[in-house]
């Protein structure tokens, strides 16, 4: 299926950009006429994925975070969030609720669990020293339907 609308973002992995990233994706999504609840769910999932890039992907360094979002005819939005950071050794383990490598910073280890509860699909692919890509997908049920 061909996307009917697309956008691309690239920004520094600074924590101050977490708010920029989720707000920008939410603004792009607004054309789909989502409910307030759907908008909040997408914002939360994007915030989790971007925070992972900043806290884990580029730990102790500043790199680039890339976001592409595609909207499809059947009211689906697919958001790809990518870093070129350290990668995840064991994706399955990283996705387990409460697993974290940053407990000292009070990371709850619930980022992926929250993403999964907010979105229809979450896919994670990662390669050590190459980076990580998270793909979030959600069908927006328009208010009128």
């Amino acid at each position: 299926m061909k996307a009917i609308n697309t956008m691309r973002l690239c920004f520094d992995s600074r924590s101050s950009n977490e708010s920029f990233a989720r707000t920008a994706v939410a603004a792009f999504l607004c054309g789909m006429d989502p409910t307030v609840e759907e908008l909040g769910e997408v914002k939360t999932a994007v915030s989790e994925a971007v925070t992972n890039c900043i806290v884990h992907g580029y730990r102790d360094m500043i790199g680039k975070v890339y976001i592409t979002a595609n909207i499809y005819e059947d009211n689906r939005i697919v958001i790809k969030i990518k870093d070129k950071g350290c990668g995840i050794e064991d994706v399955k383990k990283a996705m387990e609720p409460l697993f974290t490598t940053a407990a000292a910073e009070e990371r709850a280890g619930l980022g992926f669990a929250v993403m999964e509860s907010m979105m229809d699909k979450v896919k994670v692919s990662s390669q050590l020293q190459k980076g990580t890509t998270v793909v979030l997908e959600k069908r927006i049920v328009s208010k009128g339907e």
Partner: protein
Amino acid sequence: MAVEIQIRENVVVACLSGEIDHHSAVGLRETIDQSVIQAKPEELILDFSLVTFMDSSGIGLVMGRFRLMQETGGRLVLQNLPAPIKKVMRLAGLDKLARLD
């Protein structure tokens, strides 16, 4: 993101407002902990009525404050949670650690 602290007899109330994410959580944590360490309250109340957004960084913030209150034998209360935030708190099982008012 801002936090306003009110200290009453044996109770510290932290009124949070705005967006809680990884970026803002650090400052909130420092402000809250400072007043808890000073006042040593029996109860710490986190009020979420003016919070417009929260991701799992907020869960970390609540878990950390729960631990802090446990160390001093006090209680943690979460107050005025907007519906979407309550959903995230329940997902994390925080309703079992703290009282949700």
